[in-house]
């Protein structure tokens, strides 16, 4: 793909196509976008983050990861569209200009590259990582039960064959550890957003406990306003709430970890579902899904920018 205009954003792509598209994006927006390798996956695939920055050092930053559960293909596809949107709208969108004037945005479009490749080549329904589990024939850990946030508590499994297997210890999965290392070494992230699919939810901490987060009222109000904007485009309805109340108690989740390490504006999206396709959302719904999600994301980014802490 020699030009991002040639790229079909309304299609699902294998990992190598996404990675090669990232290079094109960087080539076309050299003053805004850089590609960082934050480490390697269990099967030694690079994990690339797109960094959107207009300069400065160690600016306050917004983190976004997508596709930690590999079979949730619309999330990775939404990441590609969103990264392109940020790069192409940067010149014209006043609020984006304002955000990027003082903050950086980091996007990990494929948070679980081994799982993503496996879902393309061997098992479309693959959700976990691809690391072996000693003493078990079952492979992989649920990377969203592997964070050091109530690790091993309710809502995660100790059975390696389960889709919600927590892993041998917190951050045992290299994919999780790579993100943790980056966030901790940076030290100045103000927002942490994880994007999943599907069930049309916008969630905030906690999942490992059903008690309210200290900032619950504010997070709830930001979430509701973000969802109102999302809904304004196509009428897609979302529920907003903390993970435990709105779905189920789940320990070891990423946004609980980020919140507990001090990143107040921690959110998780569950993207669109038509009620007909689940994880097999047709590709013609990628752009509508990404477009509506963008409105919510932008609201959160603007809010984070306007409310320094």
């Amino acid at each position: 793909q020699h030009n991002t205009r040639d790229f079909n954003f309304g299609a699902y792509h294998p990992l190598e196509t996404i990675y090669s598209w990232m290079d094109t994006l960087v080539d076309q927006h050299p003053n805004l976008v850089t590609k960082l390798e934050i480490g390697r996956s269990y099967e030694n695939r690079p994990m690339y983050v797109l960094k959107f920055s207009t300069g400065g050092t160690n600016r306050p930053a917004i983190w976004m990861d997508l596709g930690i559960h590999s079979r949730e293909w619309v999330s990775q596809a939404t990441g590609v569209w969103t990264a392109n949107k940020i790069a192409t709208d940067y010149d014209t969108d006043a609020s984006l200009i304002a955000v990027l004037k003082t903050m950086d945005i980091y996007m990990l479009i494929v948070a679980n590259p081994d799982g993503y490749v496996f879902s393309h080549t061997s098992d479309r329904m693959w959700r976990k990582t691809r690391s072996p589990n000693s003493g078990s024939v079952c492979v992989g850990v649920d990377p969203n039960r592997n964070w050091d946030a109530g690790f091993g508590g309710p809502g995660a499994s100790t059975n390696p064959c389960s889709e919600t297997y927590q892993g041998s210890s917190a951050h045992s999965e290299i994919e999780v550890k790579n993100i943790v290392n980056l966030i901790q070494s940076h030290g100045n992230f103000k927002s942490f957003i994880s994007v999943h699919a599907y069930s049309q939810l916008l969630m905030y901490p906690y999942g490992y406990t059903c008690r309210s987060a200290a900032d619950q009222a504010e997070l709830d109000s930001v979430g509701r306003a973000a969802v109102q904007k999302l809904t304004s485009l196509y009428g897609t309805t979302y529920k907003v709430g903390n993970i435990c109340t709105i779905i189920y108690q789940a320990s070891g989740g990423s946004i609980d970890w980020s919140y507990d390490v001090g990143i107040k504006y921690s959110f998780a999206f569950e993207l669109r579902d038509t009620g007909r396709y689940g994880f097999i959302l047709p590709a013609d719904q990628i752009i509508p899904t990404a477009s509506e999600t963008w409105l919510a994301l932008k609201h959160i980014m603007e809010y984070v920018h306007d409310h320094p802490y």
Partner: protein
Amino acid sequence: ERLFTGDQVIRVDAQSEEQIKLLQILESEEKWNLDFWRHPVSTELPVDVRVPRSHLGALKEYLNAHSIPFTVMIDDVQELLDQEKAEMRENHIR
């Protein structure tokens, strides 16, 4: 490559906490080989579950026996995956 021929995704609309509990029992039984896409947690949210063809009859019987309402969300998972793959192939060629 793993095939999903004849697997269905069933959408269950539990009407009571008791029905949620019955679904949670199913979730914990590994022999059914069920893949919960949306878990049974409350009567406010639907439950989606991918059911291998070999267990379809038994699962539907279980739901009927407990008067738990359900609909078929995806009739044949493999059919959708074949369409998805064909689309990707076409896009790749283009």
